[in-house]
């Protein structure tokens, strides 16, 4: 199976500080892949490189056999990579539905003229945007009573779901989730595991996950990569990662003993 996302020797530095050093990394179509590592290992920076927000000094990133590095973030999304943010970033003072509708922007094209004259094509497109957004909200389990509410007034767990629905509304082939379980209760984490699995199985969307809850990671991932000090120190199936002494050492070295024990 050809890799959907392929990173080759990605190196990123800010003002002389190396953040990522020669990262090689792949995500296969239709799989759940996780990226773990101690705080400050460079996981979110790697996400930002994939989505075009950061430009690495060297290396290459290809997705669906297309080079991603020359693209701007909005073009990366159009190419089929969607993301959520570590600290939920929903649009303030806009409804849940309006938030999710933003994802459809890159799959539609109506402009000012269509809007002013309510041209038939624009009206059909608005219908499509709405219908697709509603479908995404239903998929993540946000009920109709919440669609018209100000998104940022929702319970935290539901805001996370809305953010996932918004990312799914871009019709991605790959979904990047940045610590989706952070701040969730035990019950909510269980529902998240089920949701991520359904995203892969029912929508055929590959998932790349950054997550600190290593227990959750080991439960749902096909493959796990471990990032430490900007380099990949281990890569493999969950069982091998759990037994890898380098991984345990990385976590203990970072005094992140709690996470190590969870391994």
């Amino acid at each position, binding site marked *: 199976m050809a890799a959907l996302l392929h990173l080759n020797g990605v190196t990123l530095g800010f003002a002389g500080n190396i953040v990522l050093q020669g990262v090689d990394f792949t995500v296969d179509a239709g799989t759940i892949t996780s990226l773990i590592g101690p705080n400050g290992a460079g996981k979110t920076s790697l996400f930002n490189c994939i*989505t075009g*927000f950061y430009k690495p000094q060297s290396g290459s990133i290809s997705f669906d056999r297309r080079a991603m590095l020359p693209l*701007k*973030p*909005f073009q990366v*999304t*159009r190419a089929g990579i*969607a*993301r959520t*943010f570590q600290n939920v*970033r*929903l*649009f*303030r*003072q*806009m*409804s849940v539905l*309006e938030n999710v*509708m*933003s*994802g459809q*922007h*890159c*799959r*539609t094209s*109506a*402009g*000012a003229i*269509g*809007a*002013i004259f*309510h041209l038939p094509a*624009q009206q059909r*497109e*608005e219908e499509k*945007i709405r219908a697709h957004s509603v479908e995404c909200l239903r998929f993540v389990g946000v009920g109709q009573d919440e669609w*018209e*509410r*100000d998104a940022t007034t929702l319970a935290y767990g539901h805001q996370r779901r809305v953010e996932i629905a*918004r*990312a799914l*509304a*871009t019709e991605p082939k790959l979904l990047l989730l940045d610590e989706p379980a952070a701040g969730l209760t035990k019950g909510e984490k269980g529902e998240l595991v089920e949701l991520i699995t359904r995203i892969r199985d029912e929508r055929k969307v590959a998932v790349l996950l950054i997550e600190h809850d290593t227990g959750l990671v080991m439960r749902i991932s096909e493959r796990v990569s471990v990032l430490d000090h900007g380099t990949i120190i281990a890569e493999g199936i969950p069982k091998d990662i759990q037994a890898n002494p380098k991984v345990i050492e990385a976590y203990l070295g970072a005094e992140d003993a709690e996470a190590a024990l969870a391994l």
Partner: protein
Amino acid sequence: MAAGKLDPRPDAWGRLATILDTPAKRGVAIALILAVMVVAPMAFGQYATVILTNALLYTILALGLNIVVGYAGLLDLGYAAFFAVGAYAVGILTTTFGWNFWATIPLAVLAAMLAGLIIGGPTLRLRSDYLAIVTLGFGEIVRIAARNLDITGKASGISGIEQPWLFGWHIARPVDFYYVFLVLAIIGILVSVRLANSRLGRAWLYVRHDEDAAEAMGINRVRVKLAAYVIGAIYGSIGGAFFAVNLTAISPESFSFKQSTLFLMAVILGGMGKIPGVILGAFIVVLAPEVLRDFGSFRYLIFAVGLLLIMLYRPSGIWPAGSKR
């Protein structure tokens, strides 16, 4: 702008919102206001008609600037420049080249769009602070160019602009222009409402609230901002075109920085991003100095204090874009 904080107290507008809770009730309110606007020239006399015409002109310009500042969140300190481009395009083409007024409008709009693309194209790629500086400079450049070029009549400007005919109706008296501006303002409102409730209108809000998140959703923020800036320019140029034929004479001082600040004041005072608020702001900016005329030279002082108080106690405007339940 300060983050829009949620105000749990039901204020005057909140109560108004509960009274006007159904589309039917809102329709009645709009019909009432419209009826008052239609009979106003008969009821209040010629002086008031001229003032109200000016308020309608400010409404059109504030609606245009609201798309730039209120929807897309771009600070434009030189909006009068687009107003000037529209006015001078009509002035030059009708007097020097003898064009029919109606034929000059597409060209006035085109000139403003071009100016918008030239100024906005490079600047909107940068952070929004830069736009404020560049637009401030652009406003001054247009005014100073108009003061010094032969084709714009230098400091004395252009006079003798012919008032237009429309199907045998000579638009010449103040009351004629009142109705022309009323129709333009209504079109301006309808266009604003439809844009706000569209893919593009939503994109402006996404970009204003969180540029990075908007871009991560596949929105080309430069393009979306440029659309707002150019549509704002079109409103400005149309306002300027009709301003020129209304006054029949234009001079560079009609397009000073003070004008730009007054337009911006109308938008911010009423409530950025909220159409009724912006209209209210435009009327206050034009009518308040008239209402306070009895106070003589103190009226601007009173007006200024009033503005300061409004900004202190209602920093997001008199009738701000409310948050949802």
